């Protein structure tokens, strides 16, 4: 896999940004519950913020919220939703976060991991989250799962699958999007292979969720997937 694949995902969202954002009005209840229970933090982070619906939730618990996405057009939509200077918008790549080590106290990485082609790249992005997240900080990670009704897959399999799911624009144009649909066991294995400290893993509404903490001090030695 080269970086052209990751660029394709970004370009897809550049194309569908406006329409996509309109269909994603409400925050997920799983994210609201996680943030409500979390301790307040100086810096919050939403990786793959999309239209900013979860960055808005983070703002209830964090003094400053960084909303990061690879798509410039989605960030423009997020700016309208969040208002200025409500969030700090950053265009960036989830596998190479432009954020300092131990700078984040509370993070959500929701419905984004499954857009990264290749296991190596997905684990690298989890390692990047571990790097920027303080050891006492917490994060919620989610990805689409084989347990979802729309997939005719065995949720007890060891691995999920790669697929392309089309997005149809109002004018009928169809834009393909890359997904890796996670088997729950595989999601847990990838998190364990990363440098994140895993607190809990579960499946809810067809998505895998994990609550995690940052990398412990002195554990900078990379685990290899």
């Amino acid at each position, binding site marked *: 896999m080269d*970086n052209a694949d990751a660029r394709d995902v970004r370009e897809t969202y550049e194309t569908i940004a406006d329409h996509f954002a309109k269909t994603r009005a409400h925050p997920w209840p799983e994210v609201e519950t996680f943030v409500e229970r979390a301790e307040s933090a100086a810096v919050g982070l939403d990786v793959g913020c999309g239209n900013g619906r979860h960055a808005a939730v983070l703002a209830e618990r964090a003094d400053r919220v960084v909303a990061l996405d690879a798509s410039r057009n989605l960030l423009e939509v997020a700016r309208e939703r969040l208002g200025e200077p409500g969030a*700090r918008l*950053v265009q960036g790549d989830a596998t190479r976060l432009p954020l300092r*080590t131990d700078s984040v106290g509370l993070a959500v990485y929701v419905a984004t991991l499954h857009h990264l082609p290749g296991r190596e790249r997905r684990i690298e992005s989890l390692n990047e989250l571990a790097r920027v997240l303080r050891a006492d900080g917490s994060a919620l990670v989610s990805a689409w799962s084989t347990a979802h009704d729309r997939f005719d897959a065995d949720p007890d399999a060891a691995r999920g699958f790669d697929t392309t799911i089309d997005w149809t624009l109002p004018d009928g144009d169809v834009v393909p999007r890359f997904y890796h649909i996670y088997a729950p066991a595989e999601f847990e294995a990838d998190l364990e292979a990363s440098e994140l400290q895993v607190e809990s893993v579960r499946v809810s509404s067809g998505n895998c969720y994990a609550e995690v903490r940052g990398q412990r001090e002195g554990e900078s030695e990379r685990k290899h997937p």
Partner: protein
Amino acid sequence: MNEDLLDIICCPLDKAELELDVDDRDDGEIVSGTLTCTDCGETFPIEDGIPNLLPPDMREETPA
């Protein structure tokens, strides 16, 4: 871009600090400028108030 982001962001490639050059400022917000890595020298544009910190190989121009 709010200037207080500078103590959170870094170079996506080597994680070194970034140096800010402001071209245009509006009411305290940085509208346009350049962020330069103090280690590798890579430059990252701030356009219309949003810093583009994508690694160069992800940056390819796309029609808006």
